[in-house]
């Protein structure tokens, strides 16, 4: 029962947030500064998720050269700058991570 409430609640808030602008589509116009501001949203939000995830993968700060999340994350960023290709980045980053973690036992 609790799970039903949890999932129903999560569905309602998630869908509402996603739907509200689609519901009024075309009837709201954004000023140029807002449109520019919005272009910064995805990189800003995603970075705010990534940085703690690679620096605190186990819930505590792990700022050392034996943190595979951090090393593979930096490696993936370098690959991404070099190739600008999402699939290459994901595959290279995951391979690097697996190698560090299971090959070298980090």
């Amino acid at each position, binding site marked *: 029962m609790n799970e039903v409430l949890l999932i129903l609640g999560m569905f309602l*808030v998630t869908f509402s947030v996603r739907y509200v602008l689609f519901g009024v589509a075309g009837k709201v116009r954004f000023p140029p500064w807002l449109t520019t501001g919005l272009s*910064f949203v995805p*990189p800003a939000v995603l970075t705010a*998720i*990534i940085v703690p995830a690679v620096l605190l993968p186990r819930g505590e700060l792990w700022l050392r050269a034996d943190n595979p999340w951090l090393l593979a994350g930096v490696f993936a960023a370098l690959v991404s700058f070099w190739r*600008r290709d999402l699939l290459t980045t994901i595959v290279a*980053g995951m391979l690097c991570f697996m190698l560090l973690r299971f090959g070298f036992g980090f």
Partner: protein
Amino acid sequence: MNCNVMNQDNASVKRREMLDGAKATIPLIIGAIPFGIIFGTLAGPSGLSALGAIAMSVFVYAGSAQFIALGLLAAGAAVPVIIATTFVVNLRHILYAANLVPKVGHLSHRWRVMMAFGLTDETFAAVSNRFLLQDNTEHAHWFYLGSWLAMYGNWVLCTALGIALGELFPDMTDWGLDFAMSVTFIGMVVPYLKSKPMWGAVIVSGAIAMATIGMPHKLGLMVAALCGISTGLSMHLLLKRQSVSETAHE
């Protein structure tokens, strides 16, 4: 006859758009596979039933919020707290929607409900070139549908697979497959980094995310993002003013 030909052409355009949409989503699906599997494996140990995990992927369909919900469930958080956190974590979707809505005014309400339900980081990343950089967006919603169906089907399937694997290999949660989410997001952020304001936004956002790590209910995420966005926007406006005044002096 003429009308028939046109309908056929139309149908093939739609089919091609859907296929292209699914294809554009393939790299993101590959990133989401371990992400969905690890969600499924973590559900049981966090206190969510197998049916609950599937239902969450089917109805909520929001990867990072689902992960955070598991973390909160494991920590014994109350249902209203988890729902409020979901709201905060998913607020970013309003901003994705804002980028897309100028292109959907001609669509029926049903289409817009579908697009809203299917709006994820991944589908936004996959469709944004199609919607924002190409001129002819009359049939782009079929592209979106293709992306959504591929992403959604994969997410639900991987959740189920993860539940099964979690029962087979109980120590899988230690493998660190959560890195799949980070690496996917890294690959999505880097292409944005082409201007000083973008760099400013990302650096400030990352730094504030670390500084606010202790804030309750993952609120630091929203604070960090807002600081990053304000930095980027301020830098953009300052640089623009500078270049305008330089042109005026010439």
